[in-house]
Structures are given as C-alpha cells and as structure tokens.
C-alpha cells in the first residue's frame, strides 16, 4: 500500500474492483465449502478453514468496508483491540482442553 496508489483511489473507486472482490468472495466461499465436501480432516481441515475465513474477512474489511483506503489512524484503532480477543481465544482453547481432560480422566459418563 504505497502512498501513490492510495491517492489515486481515495475518492471513488472503479466498479471493477468491487466486482472483483465479489467474485473472489464467491470463489473463496466455494473453496471453503469444498473443504467440507471433500471431508478433509485434522490439521489440514483446520488450516484450510481458517485460511479461507481470514482471507474472506480480510477482503470484506479491506475493500467492501473501505478499510484499505482509510487512514492508518482508523485502521490501527480498529485492529489492535483484536489482540485482546486473540488472547481470550487462545486461553479458552487451553481451558477447554483442560476441562475435557479433567472430565475424561476422572469421570466415566461426562460432566
């Protein structure tokens, strides 16, 4: 994202770019659907799901929501708080695993 590129696109954007993103979203959604269709499992499934998810989310935010063209002040204000969520998610994954371990280890019909 260089300055010059930004400048050209600030005011209004060609319709093409929206159609492109639109198409891409279709394709990506189709791919993530295919992950299920071909019944990938395990790590592969997870990485594919997350990859397509973040790509789609990124495209929507960047272009449909115009974040790509916004000034960094706004972009940063919006993205940094996500670290709190990331931390929350990470810890809750650990917590979920710990709980299920405790249940499986000591119980025989679940908690």
């Amino acid at each position: 994202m260089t300055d010059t590129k930004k400048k050209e696109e600030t005011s209004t954007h060609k319709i093409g770019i929206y159609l492109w993103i639109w198409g891409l979203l279709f394709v990506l959604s189709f791919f993530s659907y295919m992950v299920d269709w071909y019944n990938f499992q395990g790590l592969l499934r997870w990485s594919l799901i997350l990859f397509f998810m973040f790509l789609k989310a990124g495209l929507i935010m960047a272009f449909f929501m115009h974040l790509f063209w916004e000034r960094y002040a706004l972009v940063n204000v919006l993205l940094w708080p996500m670290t709190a969520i990331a931390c929350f998610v990470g810890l809750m994954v650990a917590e979920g695993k710990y709980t299920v371990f405790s249940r499986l280890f000591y119980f025989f019909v679940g908690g």
Partner: protein
Amino acid sequence: MSDDLNIKKTSSIKTKSSSVSGGGTDIDYVRPAELPEQDLYHGHSFITKWIFCQDAKVIGIQYTLTAVFTGVVGLILSWMMRMQLGFPELFPFLTAESYYQMVTMHGMIMVVYLLTALFLGGFGNYLIPLMVGARDMVFPYVNMISFWMFFVAVVVLMASFFVPGGPTGSGWTLYPPQAILEGTPGSGYGILLMLISLSLFVIGFTMGGLNYVITILQARTRGMTLMRMPLTIWGIFTATVLALLAFPALLVSSIMMTLDKVLGTSFFMPTIIKAGEMLSYDGGSPILFQHLFWFFGHPEVYIVALPAFGIVSDLLSVHARKNIFGYRMMVWAIVGIGALSFFVWAHHMYVSGMNPWFGFFFASTTLIIAVPTALKVYNWILTLWRGNIRLTTVMLFCLGFIVTFVNGGITGIFLGNVIVDVPLSDTYFVIAHFHMVMGIAPLMVIFGAIYHWFPLITGRFLDETLGKWHFWVTFLGAYSIYFPMHYLGFIGVPRRYFEMYDSPYMTSAVGMNEFISVAAFIVGAAQFIFFYNLVKSIRLGKPAGKNPWKANSLEWLTPQVPPEHGNWGEKLPVVHRWAYDFNVPGAKKDYITQTTPPSEVIEAEVEKT
C-alpha cells in the same frame, strides 16, 4: 506534507519554547476549522429542556442524580449488612437470605450503577464537551436515549426488591450454577430482573459511550490536540473505550445465563444433583461464566478507576498551582493500564479451578500493571513537590485519595501474586482491598470533583467548613473501616459469611466487627452532611463568579456561568496550550488559560522584565 497540519511547529506544550520564537502574529496560528458548526436542537418546553433533554450537561446531571440515588440505596444496604455483621443478634429480620440479597445488590449497585454511571454518564457528559471545546456531544439524541435506558435499567433493578422472592442474592459476581438454582435467594424473578437490568445498562451505556468516544476523537475545537487534553478527558476516554469493549462480555454472559434459566439450556450448567434429584442440565461449564464475567469485570474496575485517576490529576494540579508532573507519562500510563487490563482478568480466578498454568501468565500480567499505576502515583506526589498547595476541601479529598489508593493498590499486589492470593482469596482481605481501592479512593475523587466543579454547575461554592468536616469524617472513618479489615482476612474469615463467630480462632473478630460497624454508620451518616451542604449551597452558597479556582482548562472559560446550551456563545474557543500552565516562569499571573495565545504571554513577560 502540507504545512497547515504541522501544528507542532507553531506551538508546543511547553510555553517556554513557544515564547522564544519571537513576536509576530503567526506564532498564534491555529489550523482553520475542519468541520462546520454543529446544529443543536434547543428545547422549548419544560419537557424538552429538563426531561427529554439533549443537552449533555443536563443529561450529565440526570445521570448523576440517578446514580447518587442508587448510591444512597447501596449505602443503606451496607448499613444493614454492617448491622448484621457487627451486632448479629440485634435485628431478627436480618435473615441469611436477606443478608445475601443485600450484599449482592450493594455490590452491583455500587460498582455499576453508582460509580460507572457517575463517572462516565455524569462527569463524562458534563465535562467532555466543555473540556474539549465542543458545543455538545456529537449525537445528542442518542445521548438522551442513553440516559433513559440507564434510567429504565435502574427502575428494573429497583423493581427486583419488590418481586416475589426478592432481589437476587447470588453475589455481585452472579456465579452460576448457584445464581439460578434454588438455595440462593431470589433465584427466580430476582436474578432475571438483574440480568435484564444489566443488559439494558449495557445497551444504554453503549449509546452514551459511542458519543463520548467520538466527541473526544472527532469534535475537538481548534488547537485542541490529544496531547493537550486535560487528563480528566483522557481518563474518561480510556475508561469509555474499555467499557465499550468489556461490556459485551457482560451482555453475552447475561444472555446465556438468562437462557439457562428460562429455556433450560446448559451453557454454564453441568450435571447437577439437587435435593437428591438430577436436574436436566448437562455438560455446561461454570468456569466459562467466570471467564466471561471477569473479562468484563476486571476492565470494569479500571473503568471506575481511570476516570478517577484523570480527574484527580487535574484537581491536584489546579489546587497545587503547579503543572501536572510528567503529563505525557500520565497519558501513556492511562492508555497502558487500559490496554493491559484486558490481559489480567483471570487473577480473580486463581483458586477457581481453572487451568493451573494460567496462574503464571496472569500473575505476571497483573503485576506488570502495577508499574504504570505506580508511575501515576509518583507523578501525583511529584506534582505536590515544590508546588503551592492550597489545602482546600478539594485538595484534601485528593490527598485522601492518594493514601487510600496506594494502600489499596499495594494490597492488590498481594492478591495479584498468585501464591499469596491462595490463602487470601475469598476472605475479608479481598473485601478490604477493593473497598480501599474502589469503594473509598474513587469516591474521594468524586467528592473532590463535586467540590471542584460545583461552582461551575451552579455558580456557587459549596460550604468549605462543612466540606472539611465531610472530608475528615469520611476519610478517617473509612480508613478505620477498611485498614483493620485486612487483618480479618489474615485470620481467615471468609467473605459473604452471614455470621461466623463460633469458630474458635474467629472469636477475636467480634470486637473488630463491632468497631467496623460503628465506623461504617458514622461514615455513612457523614454523607448526609454532604447532601445538606449540596442542597443548602445551591441557593445560599457563596457566589463563585467565573473561574473561581483560577484553572486553565476550557470548561471554566465559557461566556456564561453556568454554561448555557451550546456552551460557547458565538464562537468556539481556540486552544493554544495544554491545561497545566501554572506558575510559568516570567508570566504575570500564576496561571495561563488554554485559550491564551502565545503572543499575549510574551507581552506579559515583556512587561515584567
């Protein structure tokens, strides 16, 4: 790079540097206005002027009055609790059920409906537009709705006192499964009304909070950079951001608990055997609720602390006639504390049975938070250093704040260190910690702030003599309630005990409890001095005139006192400096208001030398 954005060149925080660059008019240059004037809706009738009013100042006062009303309810509840704890046999109507209901309502009211609403809704609404030089909040209509949502939330909360079964007695932390099962008082309507009230509060607050944030970010007056804002605004701003990001967790946990209660879902409810029967719940996770609650709850305690930090900085600076020490550090500390507060929540859960490895992470983050907080404390006392301290009531409350806050903060350090928390958690040590740091310290600031801004709001001073009495009784009384209380915690007295004296080693607590209770009655009663002072001074107080404390910040510089709707008359003020130019060397007066252009300061200097 366009020149007109480069404001740093023309004026900086330090007056010294701006005054060296010589005379001429361009030194007073401030960027032209970016935005058109705000259209305001002016009320015409009593209803649109005072009830469904869109003026942030009136909304602020509405918030304050409602919050203080709930505060008085909370105070009375605390009296009754102390009655039971100090003199257990005296009042037969104080049953265990009602005791727990009181504890719960007391805690929730004080934290959420008094302090949060008062600091953000009350002070936020009143001060933000004035201090950043805006005519009003950016969306006055939404702001008005915000207050009325809050009002409804309070009504719903109070209604729970009158429903069958009474209000919920689940503790303000509302931990399931207990909160929604029989065996806890008010587990029927009480808890539902509590959850509904909280949800309404969150929704209402979100509307207000968006207004505060956007007003501060996008509606400042010319020359008002972020680094020139009074720390009050920084505190309120950061707290509001925290609230906008933390309340969602409360909302979500309220919704989920409501569903568990009403629909019989099992989000937080595992298999449970009650009275020999198995309930229909299965597989849920009580600890999940605690994570959600404290993901909200810990930021929440800073939501009530940060505005207090900000306000006390301003009060100290004005009344010590000295610039706040280390302004930039203060700003970074506020922001840093705010950001970090999202990474420490599970320090409330050290002994909750969560993944034990979390202890390492959360103990570290928790103690790290002490560093920026400590800096703030140092800066407050360094502001006093070589100042010219006016020992007004306001200043006294600030000093009281410092003592109680440091005391409570240090006990927080005890609790934050995970292994120390193990014996102390869920004992009166925790109660003492948070009353010192939350019950007393921010209240000191609120009182100080009211003594400080009352002349602006009403045009009259509060009575200083009564004020001093109010301060000393409150400070000494509250300190003697909570300082000894820590030692109850050492003995091992658990919190939320309706009575406890039959244990052999706890009998020694009886005497202390009686003492604490008496002190609590006195402190509570002292608040009525304050209320009397308020009522009396509205009509009979000494007229204050403009800017009675000789402060610098914008709110004192309105054409009218009290400020009218729209705040600024014809023209918005233009800001040239930070709010802390007190006793600038060479300046004629001991303060230079934010609107004073550099060229005038130079003249003053020239005259003097």
